[in-house]
């Protein structure tokens, strides 16, 4: 039994989950800044990304050292490779939160209709749930739970499409137009966060089964 090696693996996986918790905090911050139009909070979210980035770099360095020194094989190798990907997905989720925060500051101060606030809250809550499901299924190596991300992703995709439709129905007010364009990008950020959560689920499937497959594949829709 390679005790030191196992400890290093466990430590890396714990760091990944801490990074996930930071990404969730960033997402909650971005969502609150958005619905409350709170530019101060948006600035905090932007600054907070350094925390996620430093965790991301620490995990990557840890993986580099582990590969160089311990030569993992079989399920250990799959875990290390899966963590390498999950690490990057979480960092990207953090980046989307920063984009949302920046758009909060850039968008003209239009008082949005309650309908749009509800739409953001729905997408934010769905994105949070997807990240939690992705991280939990990774931690418990639960393939079945990971596969539920496909259905959750469909819900966030639909919410995104509905939002775009609502923005397209705006009148001719130029301020509303600019707000709408920027908010389409916000909506798209939530939708992309969902995609990254699905990708984490695919890594769980790879870790458990040893075979990589996309849960859904636009280029092979019948698979």
């Amino acid at each position, binding site marked *: 039994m390679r005790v030191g090696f196992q400890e290093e693996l466990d430590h890396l996986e714990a760091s990944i989950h801490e990074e996930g918790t930071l990404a969730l905090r960033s997402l909650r911050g971005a969502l609150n800044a958005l619905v409350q139009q709170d530019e101060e909070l948006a600035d905090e979210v932007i600054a907070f990304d350094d925390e996620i980035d430093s965790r991301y770099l620490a995990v990557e360095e840890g993986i580099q050292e582990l590969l160089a020194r311990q030569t993992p*094989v*079989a399920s250990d*190798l*799959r875990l290390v490779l899966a963590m390498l990907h999950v690490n990057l997905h979480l960092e990207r989720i953090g980046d989307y939160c920063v984009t949302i925060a920046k758009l909060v500051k850039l968008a003209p101060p239009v008082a949005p209709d309650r309908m749009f606030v509800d739409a953001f809250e729905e997408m934010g809550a769905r994105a949070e749930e997807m990240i939690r499901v992705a991280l939990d299924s990774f931690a418990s190596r639960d393939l079945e739970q990971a596969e539920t991300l496909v259905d959750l992703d469909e819900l966030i995709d639909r919410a995104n499409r509905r939002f775009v439709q609502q923005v397209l129905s705006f009148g001719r007010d130029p301020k509303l137009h600019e707000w709408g364009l920027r908010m389409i990008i916000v909506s798209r950020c939530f939708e992309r966060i969902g995609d990254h959560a699905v990708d984490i689920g695919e890594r769980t499937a790879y870790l458990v089964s040893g075979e990589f497959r996309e849960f859904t594949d636009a280029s092979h829709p019948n698979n």
Partner: protein
Amino acid sequence: MSVTDTSRTVKIAADLNRTPAPQHKDVVFDVKDVGVSYDGNLAVREVSLPIYSNEVTAIIGPSGCGKSTFIRVFNRMNDLIPGAKVHGTVLYHGEDLYGKDVDSVEVRKQIGMVFQKPNPFPKSIYDNVAFGPRVLGWRKGLEERVEQALRRAALWDEVKDRLKKNALGLSGGQQQRLCIARALATEPEVILMDEPASALDPIATTRIEDLMHELKRDYTILIVTHNMQQAARVADMTAFFSVDIAPEGDRTGILVEYDETSKIFTQPSDQRTEDYVTGRFG
């Protein structure tokens, strides 16, 4: 280049669909239900596997799993051990290696062996390599034969100016390559290597591993190694052996898994293989 360029996208699709399925060459040995016993005690139990030509096949496993016993089946080295008995069938190009009419000396000419500790004769470098051909009565072209064997063993440049010097003056790594040259001089088809690098430093080990990579173009190589990473680096196929301990304490070597080396080290099928290669064994 636009993605709507059909010639381009067709090419991409063709590349994606190309499945690099492992292509094995001919079967050199077909091992069927082979076991080895010493004085009636079973040391290795009922192993069946094919050995492919021009590949490196590694045999890995913990101490006492019968790796060395098993590799000696292939050149009938167990014949030399009193009380040793080989059961089952070993077909060498379809012929029974243990058939009545088969001459074990002829077998060992075809199937050379290199051992853990370099064991050159206390003779000159030249005489070490010339020994096998002389025994076989191959007098003609002996110098060329010696040179060719030393070149194939990647030793020629280091020894060409001191062929008459005693082989024991060479470094450990050079002595091991000399032993490989000695095995090659009788023009074998197969080379068995029992822990060929375990007594060598890392640089000499790398040279032996590079040499295996070169030699498999012309030879079939079987290697026993306790160094799993060495197996991962050099072998095309890997057989994992383990020890089965009976309730009364008898220990028998068994073949657990035999597959492409890349499969053994990324996705082994058997939990025992997984536990061994990840270091969770014992």
